[in-house]
């Protein structure tokens, strides 16, 4: 195991948000149809390369979304899921909400990238509600993305502000989807989740042993495969 852990570490320090976004972008296969969730996942779009030929979907009814609009490009009728004005790419299409969610729910998207409060050892996702009694619940399209996309990538810090692992044995926050997450990109490691538990693809600034000390579920090194 110690030999494998040495090969897992791919950076001397934890990754910052932009480094992580760059890594996720690099891992998206050319030609994919992708939905990027609100917040940290949106950063991924900054690092997608034209030669990857990625088509971005936005849940409010568009394929072929371009970068955030600036200046004269701003058009209140052309916004993304976060209600930010965006632009259209050549080849873009517009459709109504039921069609847009059929794209998600019908399994047509290759990847969605979402933020999370917690991910369980078997890939359960909690990312929409803290469950606090005074919180106003709002779910949006999170459950549709989580259950509909072929691959669900999560981007998050590994630890909460209090130092607790967000990868957990079982989620304590209300669930968004059951067994839906396939990869978790964090500042300290990339995890692969599935029915067989959690494997670690690479670590950033820590060894597998040091990572295991932080995460309360058994971790094993993933077989060496290209991302």
């Amino acid at each position, binding site marked *: 195991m110690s030999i494998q852990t040495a090969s897992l570490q791919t950076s001397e320090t934890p990754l910052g948000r932009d480094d992580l976004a760059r890594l996720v972008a690099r891992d998206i296969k050319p030609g994919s149809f992708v939905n990027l969730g609100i917040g940290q996942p949106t950063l991924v779009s900054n690092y997608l390369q034209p030669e990857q030929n990625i088509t971005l979907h936005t849940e409010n009814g568009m394929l072929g979304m371009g970068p955030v609009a600036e200046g004269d490009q701003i*058009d209140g009728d052309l916004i993304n899921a976060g209600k930010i004005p965006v632009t259209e790419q050549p080849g873009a299409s517009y459709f*109504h909400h039921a069609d847009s969610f059929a794209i998600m729910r019908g399994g047509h998207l290759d990847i969605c990238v979402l933020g999370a409060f917690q991910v369980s050892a078997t890939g359960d996702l909690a990312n929409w509600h803290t469950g606090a009694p005074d919180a106003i619940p709002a779910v949006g399209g999170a459950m549709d993305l989580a259950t509909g996309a072929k691959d669900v990538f999560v981007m998050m810090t590994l630890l909460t502000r209090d130092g607790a692992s967000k990868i957990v044995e079982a989620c304590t926050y209300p669930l968004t989807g059951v067994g839906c997450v396939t990869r978790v990109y964090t500042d300290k490691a990339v995890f692969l989740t599935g029915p067989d538990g959690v494997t670690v693809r690479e670590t950033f600034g820590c060894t597998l042993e040091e990572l295991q000390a932080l995460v309360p579920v058994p971790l094993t090194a993933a077989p060496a495969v290209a991302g």
Partner: protein
Amino acid sequence: MLHFIDTVGEAVAGIKDGSTVMIGGFGNAGQPFELIDALLEGGATDLTVVNNNAGQGDQGLALLIKEGRVRKMICSFPRQSDSWHFDAKYKAGEIELELVPQGNLAERIRAAGAGIGGFFTPTGYGTMLAEGKETRIIDGRGQVFETPIHADVALIKALKADGVGNLVYRKTARNFGPIMAAAAKHTIVQVSEIVPTGGLDPENVVTPGIYVNSIVRVNTAAGKTEQVA
């Protein structure tokens, strides 16, 4: 029967207290602000409103909520940085909330328009939003039974209508318009422009006129989402 109406006030005059009203828009894009203002002016109350959100800022749906006209919201994402009027009513216990995953909201509206009595979907399975609902394992996946959402009235915004009520929309402002037009018993549309019959390419019509009951022209610049005085 299709009616072209001169003012937004006349267009919404028939909306009764206690109605279920679908309101198009995702955030401000596609929100029919002038029809909502007319509904506010007209005084109808005890409304159930179906919208993706629960109003932004101090305009449109947010004002309808502020003035206590909305008994219940059916929506997917009420909580936003500027949803203070909904937040206040909710925390005061003065408005009921039915929170629906966004794809279920869209598909339940679509189902109503298509005469579908309900459907099973994996969305929400195993979550608190499926509690108390019928479930089945279909093709190896847990699925939840969801029912259609019908409405007495839909208020939507489109770009253009022709003389028989065919509609085209603009960019992402299309959002809920086409499915709400089909789901409601009476669909009222505000458009920026009315063109003669034959003036829309039949290949490009998004909402066929059969779904449309009332059309009123409202002068808003394309892409402008702020309320026009």
